[in-house]
């Protein structure tokens, strides 16, 4: 007779989250590898380098209560000519689906894609972080609905796709999964807009996976605009083929507690990756961007730029890993992370990590955390600007390098969110 061991706190959390997701609706079976990994993997602690500054013990107590409200939130990016799909708490809200048949493009929810084109979806799927990261495994064990965009080889998606996910009021949980399958030589633009009600709380544990074929060109803009007290963990995984071009821009407009893991794998020669991001936590907010790029083949290029400010008593974390594999010669990899501290009690932890196993590589990186440029401040004040006006102008200028890369509608939106936060205008 063996005693039944008391399950660990995180196993209880896993069950609670999985049950809640299943109750509201998951898509397909949970990934068996992820389910196995969920049992085997340890729960992250600050003793692990990747979670050093990111305390997830607080997430153990999340107990989802609210059943997702089935109401549509106010539209976003109203002026943009785009193909928009809306999801609320991991459930598809029923907008138009673009389906050009088995040989053509598909833009719709993953649930429908799996019904109509199971083969195409499964062929393109990857495990991403699901077998290596506890929260990713949890997501993949009970995945909910998200967008699925399939652009076959040689096709071009004329309009951008907006995949909008909304977390409603209350303590909720959602594990949406968005998938982009961009075939060889195909072209597409996507926007993932993740927002919440102002009194949303709980856990948003979402995945974005993109597979970009040889010679393909894919650009993705991610906007995270979540007021309230939500905990958001994002698993963003990209694989790109030879001679492909990938651009990922992430704007964290609003986040109570956020961890993003962004991983790009260059799985062919001459791949080109651009990934930029910006963030501006204030109050007691916490924002953590972990990025990694794998240059696994020769002649790849990457350009990474993350910029942010930490105000008040907030904390920002940046970790950027560049991995250049053996024989991945003639890589050009540039990484830059610039931070401004706006509050004496604000904290910024920034770390570049370079692992280079090839010998002919051009790599540069720079991490800086500073205060305002005193000379610039004096110059602006000597022209009559108040200290606040001068700060605001310098903040805008600081972020412009990243924000200007977004399409105008998004740039202006995020700019306005930041402006309201810092009292600009």
């Amino acid at each position, binding site marked *: 007779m063996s005693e039944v061991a008391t399950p660990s706190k995180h196993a209880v959390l896993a069950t609670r989250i999985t049950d809640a997701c299943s109750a509201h609706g998951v898509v397909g079976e949970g990934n068996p590898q992820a389910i196995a990994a969920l049992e085997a993997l340890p729960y992250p602690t600050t003793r692990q380098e990747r979670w050093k500054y990111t305390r997830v013990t607080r997430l153990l107590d999340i107990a989802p209560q609210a059943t997702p409200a089935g109401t549509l939130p106010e539209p976003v990016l109203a002026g943009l000519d785009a193909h928009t799909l809306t999801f609320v708490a991991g459930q598809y809200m029923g907008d138009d689906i673009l389906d050009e048949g088995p040989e053509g493009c598909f833009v719709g929810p993953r649930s429908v894609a799996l019904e109509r084109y199971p083969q195409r979806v499964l062929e393109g799927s990857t495990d991403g972080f699901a077998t290596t990261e506890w929260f990713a495994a949890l997501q993949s064990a009970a995945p909910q609905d998200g967008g699925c965009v399939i652009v076959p080889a040689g096709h071009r998606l004329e309009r951008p796709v907006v995949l909008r996910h909304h977390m409603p009021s209350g303590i909720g949980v959602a594990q949406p999964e968005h998938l982009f399958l961009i075939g060889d030589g195909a072209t597409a633009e996507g926007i993932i807009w993740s927002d919440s009600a102002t009194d949303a709380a709980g856990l948003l544990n979402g995945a974005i996976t993109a597979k970009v074929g040889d010679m393909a060109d894919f650009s993705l803009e991610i906007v995270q605009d979540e007021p309230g007290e939500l905990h958001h963990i994002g698993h963003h995984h990209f694989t790109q083929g030879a001679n492909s071009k990938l651009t990922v821009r992430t704007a964290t407009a609003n986040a109570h507690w956020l961890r993003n893991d962004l991983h790009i794998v260059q799985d062919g020669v001459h791949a080109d990756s651009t990934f930029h991001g910006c963030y501006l936590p204030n109050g007691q907010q916490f924002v953590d961007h972990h990025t990694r790029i794998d240059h696994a083949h020769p002649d790849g290029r990457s350009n990474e730029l993350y910029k942010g400010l930490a105000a008040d008593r907030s904390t920002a974390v940046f970790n950027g890993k560049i991995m250049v594999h053996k024989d991945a010669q003639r890589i050009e990899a540039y990484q830059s992370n610039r931070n401004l501290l706006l509050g004496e009690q604000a904290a910024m932890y920034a770390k570049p990590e370079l692992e280079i196993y090839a010998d002919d590589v051009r790599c540069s990186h720079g991490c800086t955390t500073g205060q305002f*440029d005193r*000379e*610039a401040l*004096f*110059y*602006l*004040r*000597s*022209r*009559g*600007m*108040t*200290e606040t*006006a001068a700060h605001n*102008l*310098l903040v*805008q*200028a*600081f972020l*412009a*390098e990243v924000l200007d890369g977004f399409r105008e509608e998004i740039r202006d939106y995020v700019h306005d969110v930041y402006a309201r936060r810092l009292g600009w205008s």
Partner: protein
Amino acid sequence: MLKIENLHARIGDTEILKGLTLSLGTGEVHAIMGPNGSGKSTLASILAGREDYEVTAGSITFDGVDLLELDATERAVAGIFLAFQYPVEIPGVSNINFLRTALNSIREQREEAPISGKDFLAKVKACAQLVELDGKLRDRSVNEGFSGGEKKRNEVFQMAMLEPRLAVLDETDSGLDIDALRIVSHGVNSMRSADRSFLVITHYQRLLDHIVPDHVHVLAGGRIVHSGGKELALELEEKGYDWIVDAQATEQA
């Protein structure tokens, strides 16, 4: 308009101004010349309100107001403008956005309504014409990648936009080619008026051919050691500073 009395100032442990006295009437143009490192830019910076300097003795009044009580912003609002010897580059802030923000910030503090977009553009156009500032420079980031001469022109352009009561020009002529010198001087001259004063810091008499001063002062060792009319500049050009500095030393000995 401006009255500086027995001004002592230091940075860290280094005393730079050592009892400087100078007064400027409304509508007057005064030139300050003097050897390198004598404290000219220090004086200019202190007038503009740079906080790195500690004033240990003396006073500055501007229109009867104790200037040392005002911070840099308040001094600009009061009508003081400094054309920097080394204008600062501010990447990401367009010249136009910068000026609009500055102008409206000043207006707000003076409890005036913000300038309309139309009036602002008209003003930009007029002022840019005054110093023949290239249109492209207006839209670029403040001073970023500007040539030395373009930076100086941009300073005078800003001065024209902000219409100060007292303009302090710190070596605005250095780095200017002959044509630019003429253009910039023309800009300054056309702004001369009965209620605006200028303090022009320069090393070259040449500038004072264009901007003819009412008075010329020599600043050496942190003090004004000699003053005269516009002809003093010519004399300095010819003889250098030694004769004055030596005479001072003898006098003090």
